[in-house]
């Protein structure tokens, strides 16, 4: 079979203008990226490291205790010591510093730095330096409060990320039960986590299928129309899916109350780790008063 190159055949648009992704398309692409990151996190959660081997409940309670200690500490050295503890935990749990830097440190620094920056200049106190041209004073007290804010945020965020990276998300949710989070809440969160991937996949398939049938760029009004139609279809699919899922639950005996199986079992090393975390948090709290 040959395909003629007839002059009557539709020609591709001559305009070299590249198709600009719509807001929704970019959102779906970003969410897909987040999905890939979640899969990477799941692989890391099954690595053979220190935190990975601990009972999830110990990690939730222990790391939360360290985060609270960092938040309450009034001594910069204590906060920095807790940051070093977080780094050691990351090292022993095979979490690359590069992952921590890209996921937490840079973002937290930018976000908190933006908030902390004015404090350097507007906090009254002993002037260390004056900015040339502007003459704005940098005070000792201003630097100190910015350092407290940034170090607290960096330490807390690193500890929280270690919990997420070293524990399968499903176990994190179940471990929330130890904090008296109601079982129905845990189950709903678990189902949300489960189906968000399916719906993201559906959304991505819809956009790719549309993309494969498109030649040239749509104008913005048309893009909005197509995006809103896609959102409508996705919503309708979601409603059908939720109705079917409910029936599948009913079919296996669900009668309005959820029961779950808690298969976590504390080992001696979990008790030792819990004692270690609590002792460390207690010490940090006492030294950082």
């Amino acid at each position: 079979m040959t395909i003629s190159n007839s002059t009557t055949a539709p020609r591709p648009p001559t305009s070299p203008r590249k198709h600009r992704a719509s807001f929704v398309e970019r959102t779906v692409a970003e969410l897909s990226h987040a999905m890939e990151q979640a899969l990477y996190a799941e692989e890391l959660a099954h690595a053979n490291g220190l935190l990975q081997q601990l009972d999830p409940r110990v990690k939730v309670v222990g790391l939360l205790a360290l985060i609270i200690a960092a938040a309450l500490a009034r001594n910069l050295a204590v906060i920095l010591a807790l940051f070093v503890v977080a780094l050691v935990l990351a090292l022993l749990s095979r979490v690359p510093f590069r992952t921590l830097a890209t996921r937490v440190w840079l973002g937290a620094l930018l976000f908190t730095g933006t908030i902390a920056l004015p404090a350097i200049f507007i906090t009254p106190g002993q002037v260390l330096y004056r900015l040339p041209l502007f003459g704005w004073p940098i005070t000792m007290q201003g630097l100190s409060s910015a350092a407290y804010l940034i170090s607290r945020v960096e330490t807390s965020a690193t500890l929280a990320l270690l919990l997420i990276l070293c524990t399968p998300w499903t176990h994190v949710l179940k471990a929330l039960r130890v904090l008296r989070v109601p079982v129905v809440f845990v189950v709903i969160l678990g189902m949300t986590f489960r189906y968000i991937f399916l719906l993201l996949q559906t959304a991505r398939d819809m956009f790719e299928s549309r993309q494969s049938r498109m030649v040239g760029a749509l104008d913005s009004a048309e893009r909005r129309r197509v995006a809103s139609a896609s959102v409508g279809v996705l919503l309708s699919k979601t409603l059908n899916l939720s109705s079917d899922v409910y029936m599948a639950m009913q079919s296996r005996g669900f009668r309005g109350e959820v029961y779950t199986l808690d298969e976590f079992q504390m080992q001696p090393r979990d008790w030792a780790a819990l004692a270690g975390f609590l002792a460390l948090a207690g010490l940090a709290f006492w030294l950082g008063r």
Partner: protein
Amino acid sequence: MTENVFDVQNVVYRYNTEVTALRGLSLQVARGERIAILGANGSGKSTLLRLLDGLYFPESGSITAFGEPLTEERLQDDTFAFAFRRRVALVFQNPDVQLFSPTVFDEVAFGPLQLRWPKDDIRRKVNETLDLLEITHLKDRSPHRLSGGEKKRVALASVLVLDPEVLLMDEPTAALDPKSQSMVVDFLIGWSGGAKTVITATHDLDIVSEIADRCHVFRQGLSVAEGTPDQVLGNQELLESSNLIHAHRHAHAGGEMHAHAHFHLRHEHTHAD
């Protein structure tokens, strides 16, 4: 006399009062029978399975399960509901609908937990079922990371853990690769062992003679024919009028076009010793 598991009498079911899915359907299912419900898309097969599983209720007509009326009111009663859910299991066509738990282990444990089995029994039974379906290695995995065939196995495990007497299967081979299809069929042949009742809704004629002893052909919400797989599969006119086979057009050498009725069946073969 063989005891009926289900007795369906003149059942009418409508979706949103507009689309009539079943129009006065009647059929009986005896204990230990393997029945295939054949029909094109929209013929009412899936609706019947959901009615038999007590998920939908007829607008008129009646359904009796194990000699008792299967109604919304009866299923409000805990004792009846627990006994019924324990005895009848439905495997949905789309396994994603059925796999809503965070991990495979949780998924298989869901049914027994809702039926309030002792937790030690649940752990033991879940592990046995995972072994039976050869999916123990998947037990900590999230359902979204499984292949289509693996999802189907987990969906099967999630209902078989209850050791049901009746298994309702909705399009069990749909969207599966040939190896996974073969796994499902082999499982159905091996599992029933003559003691279990299996009702399979399908339009895959390739598997019918292996999974069923009796067939119902559905068209527009009614059973238009009933018989053994040989009787039904041998009736070309019936299959064609029920949209289960289609005209296959192809060209012969010389460009002559030719059309004939066409459907796919496993080929006959001999085993060389």
